[in-house]
């Protein structure tokens, strides 16, 4: 095949084929693509291979240190409890008793982080596609009970959501991916908003209420939706946009999770069954870190005890 005419013809054919594939696949994005079988085949083929190679890479990476562990939940819980203490104390000083109640319930629900049923997984591969995508492949799939749109967390907070599931591996869209957005709630004020990935670095956020206001350093949690579990830490507000013409307040927030050094993550396969109505002990209860299977969920009927010794009831 020396003739450049025939070469050009082949190029045109390949380009048209690629276009056709893209068009067919793009039209049916979100399920029912004619190429689902192709993807499943690739996942089945590459999943175990990536696990083998990725496992080695992970061990080397872990030996080098600095990788977050799922056990970091303990620290998180302690921090949350301190935050909780302080907030509950503040709440008693303000009026608006109804809101106080709602708020502490929201806060208490943060405790649920430990009562989610989590399937642990390792990140075996990362997708970049010329630097435009931030996805990770994890080594659990439908055989481990993973389904699409499950929330993925690690010890620090929200990692992403499951986008595609193969038999032995799944693809997770990470928080920083521009295709990723999540309903969020400001911990201090309870205001709602939407956080969206903007590529590596801080996420952008938009508050929903016109009069909402965020302060730098405000912790942000998922608000809970059809896709995301509520109460998963997302990050901290890193800057606010002071544009008076903006319809609603916007700004950026720094995610807790460093997506460049992901290793152990957990997929929330079953949400918490309810707000835990048990006394919160002064010491941190053990959190399921590496073991799969249902964790001990406190019985929802147990009495709600005062969470904080520092909080003094206001008259």
């Amino acid at each position, binding site marked *: *095949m020396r003739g450049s005419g025939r*070469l050009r013809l*082949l*190029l045109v054919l*390949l*380009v048209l*084929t*690629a*276009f*056709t*594939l*893209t*068009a*067919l*696949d*793009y039209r049916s*994005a979100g399920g029912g*693509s004619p*190429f689902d079988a*192709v*993807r499943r*085949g*690739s*996942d089945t083929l*590459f999943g175990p*291979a*990536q696990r083998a*190679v*990725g496992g080695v*890479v992970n061990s080397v*990476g872990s030996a080098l240190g600095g990788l977050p562990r799922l056990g970091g939940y303990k620290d998180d819980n302690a921090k949350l409890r301190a935050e909780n203490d302080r907030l509950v104390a503040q709440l008693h000083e303000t009026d608006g008793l109804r809101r106080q109640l709602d708020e502490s319930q929201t806060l208490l629900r943060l405790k649920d982080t430990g009562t989610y049923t989590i399937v642990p997984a390792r990140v*075996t*591969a*990362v*997708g*970049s*596609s*010329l*630097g*435009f*995508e931030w*996805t990770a*492949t994890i080594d659990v799939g439908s055989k481990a009970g993973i389904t699409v749109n499950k929330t993925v967390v690690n010890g620090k907070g929200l990692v992403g959501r499951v*986008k*595609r599931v193969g038999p032995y591996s799944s*693809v997770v*869209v990470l928080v920083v*991916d*521009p*295709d990723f957005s999540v309903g969020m709630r400001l911990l201090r004020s309870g205001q709602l908003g939407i956080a969206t990935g*903007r*590529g*590596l670095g801080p996420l952008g956020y938009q508050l929903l209420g016109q009069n909402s206001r965020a302060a730098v350093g405000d912790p942000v949690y998922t608000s809970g939706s059809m896709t995301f579990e509520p109460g998963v830490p997302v990050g901290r507000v890193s800057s606010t946009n002071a544009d008076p013409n903006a319809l609603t307040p916007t700004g950026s927030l720094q995610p807790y999770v460093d997506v*460049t*050094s992901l290793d152990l993550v957990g997929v929330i396969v079953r949400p918490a069954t309810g707000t835990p109505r048990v006394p919160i002990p002064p010491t941190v209860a053990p959190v399921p870190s590496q073991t799969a299977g249902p964790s001990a969920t406190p019985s929802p009927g147990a009495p709600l005890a005062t969470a904080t010794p520092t909080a003094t009831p206001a008259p």
Partner: protein
Amino acid sequence: MTGRRFLLGAATVLTALLLQTTVLSRLPLPGAAPDLLLVLVVAYALAEGPLSGMTTGFIAGVLADSLADHALGRLALVYAVVGYLTGMIEDDSDRSTFLPFLAVGLGALGGVLVFAAEGVLLGDPRITLSALGRSLISSVPYAVVLTPFVVPAVGALVRRVDPELIRR
């Protein structure tokens, strides 16, 4: 195209894809990850010409697409075009030491631009001006850095497996 040459192509593409997803993409480097597949496609194009470049590129692209989170065929188009164009560079110039670097650099540059253009056509929210800039300033140098490891190796492998395919 012999059976052995086909096996060589399959083995190198699969190995590159595996290394790409498990190792290169996870390196804590700023910007886009080094794209080993693209360098491999250019290496085949330089060793054997545009026909080899675009077919290798198309197949490698479809495989990469099937693992990634975008519509199938996008990287296939990018790699096929890059393979064809870098295969054409060789035809009317003498072989020099810098040619592979130039070809890979231009290939990476063109690849990112074609991928971004496709994304704009499809309304992909991931394609923004800042993402494009970040990808360009990192992809091109990383690809050039990979060149001395990949291009001579592919040339040597092709020469061993099927010397008749080497042009010049």
